[in-house]
């Protein structure tokens, strides 16, 4: 294999190198790649949005299905533009209120489901030392999150145990993830060395 003659591969390779140059320091190559990525991705986003939202979710339902319900989000969306006019700018709070209401409202039952699942998973379905450690770990971690009690005396001791569990968990999760991150770099190097330069087969 030899160096690629494909124009597009060259572009991808040079952009890859431009991003890596950031590891040395901020420089014009990185700036170029950064600004380009932001510009292109937002252009891409707008196109995807046109296709997925305006056409599929607004235009088609309105024109073909005569579904006038979509007029509500349409109006709410347009109210966002009231910000451009000083005397009606307060109207943009309405869509924000709507969206926040929906988000918090939906989160209440889903928090419950999550809560139930977590408690269920903590129940010792088989009796071994692991189950006991899990019960102790979950409870002491929960104690760490007590806000309305001062963490001293017995509560303080338990919450200290909770912090220990949390630290072990963080160390483990950190060490566990390194492999996946190195894999990403290996993938990029393979692209550079094989697709672009043709050094490795």
């Amino acid at each position, binding site marked *: 294999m030899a160096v690629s003659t494909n124009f597009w591969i060259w572009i991808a390779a040079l952009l890859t190198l431009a991003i890596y140059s*950031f590891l040395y320091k*901020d420089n014009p190559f*990185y700036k170029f*790649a*950064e*600004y380009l*990525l*932001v510009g292109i*991705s*937002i252009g*891409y*986003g707008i196109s995807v949005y046109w296709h997925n939202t305006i056409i599929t979710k607004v235009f088609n339902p309105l024109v073909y299905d005569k579904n006038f319900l979509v007029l509500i989000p349409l109006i709410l969306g347009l109210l*966002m533009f009231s*910000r451009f006019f000083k005397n009606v700018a307060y109207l*943009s*709070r309405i*869509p*924000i209120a709507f*969206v*926040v209401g*929906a*988000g*918090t409202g*939906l*989160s*209440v*039952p889903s*928090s*419950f*489901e999550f*809560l*139930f699942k977590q*408690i*269920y998973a*903590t*129940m*010792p*379905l088989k*009796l071994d030392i692991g*189950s*006991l450690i899990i*019960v102790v770990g*979950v*409870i002491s971690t*929960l*104690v760490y*999150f*007590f*806000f*309305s*009690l*001062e*963490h001293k005396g017995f509560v303080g001791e338990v919450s200290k145990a909770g912090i220990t569990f*949390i630290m072990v*968990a*963080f*160390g483990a*999760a*950190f060490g566990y*993830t390194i492999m996946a991150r190195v894999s990403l770099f290996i993938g990029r190097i393979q692209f550079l060395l094989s697709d672009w330069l043709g050094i490795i087969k």
Partner: protein
Amino acid sequence: MLKKILLLIFLVFSVSLFSQGNDSIIFLENQNPFLDFKLTGSDIPNDGGGGIQINWCFPDSLGNWFLTVLRRDDSNNIMVVATDLLVSSMQVRDVSSDEEPSRVKDNSNYYYTGILSKNMISEEFLNRLISNGSGYSKNGVYIFGNDTFYVTGETDPIVSKSSWFNLSRIPVLVSLIIIAFVFLYYLNLAKSGKDLYIRKINGLDAVEEAVGRSTEMGKPIMYILGIGYVTDIPTIAGLTILGRVAKKVADYETRILVPSYDPVVMTTAQEVVKEAFTEAGRPDLYNKNDIMYITQDQFGYAAGVDGMMMREKPGAVFLQGLFFAESLILAETGHSIGAIQISGTTETAQLPFFVAACDYTLIGEEMMAASVYLQKEPMMLGSIAAEDLLKVFIMFLIITGFVLSVLGYGLKIEVLKNVFDWLIKLLQV
């Protein structure tokens, strides 16, 4: 029974001899050796309608056979529900979906029939059977080509219904009501003027210091809300903290930069900062352009924010909201420019990286309680106390479960074992 089967085999054999090369269907009534094999159907409970489940029991010998399910409605339209199901799968659902929104209509009668076969069903046979109109449903044995198919009797009419209440969610409703009362109790307590305590949260006391030091150095503050939407609770929590931080920023008469991932988050952040500046009596310092949109692309956003950090060199960086893989890209860059970093998220997978790269990290619930801590308003403190009471309840539940399991399963006390099983069932929502 044996006689019947022998007779049947003989019949099948002789008929198949005659039918060589002749693709007509031969029907043998009342020769079905699988008369016990029946389909039963019922409305799928707790759904919004448009769904029927069909079940069957089977003798072991049929485990590897295939079952094709047909459906007839009152106007004799026949539809194939599913072909070639493994008999051992025991259930199939006939449901409306986004692709076929009116496949199953509520409140109309449907009749289901099954076709058992040793081999996969031939499409031609199926088509002919259906084109035969309502006659298809006769219970009996059909021979087509080299294959034999056993057609079961039709089920009674089955009607799909839409439920008004999801019974499986009663435990959630009950706990919701209890929790609502706990919250209301504490909110009332707070209103009546009882002093409520909140423990120190590391990191939040550093907000003042971070903003102050940044101002001294003549550097701006950067507040990163992550890649969540306004519908995500961590983002909302991040916005509430932003309000408090922005007020301090206004007090110190410095700048706050908020690069955003989602346009709705950006507009909301603009509102929050503007109001905080107004409250602090410095609306003149508010600059809409400091709260800017970057892009709705995870790594495009990371690249843009990294670049902005390198060029604006903020003295303090806040990372509060929903973060995924970009967490460490942002936090390491923030550290490399020497900024004080205060982070917080609910993504447990990202917390280790924040803890490693930032000066202070708000872990999970600490971040949600942060706006309360920074404001210390009685009503808000009341809600925190309510959360704590629920924690006690959860601990109690977990310990009870553990004890029951030890006594019930470890020491084999039957009653407690049953209580434990019941508890487990209750938790499976």
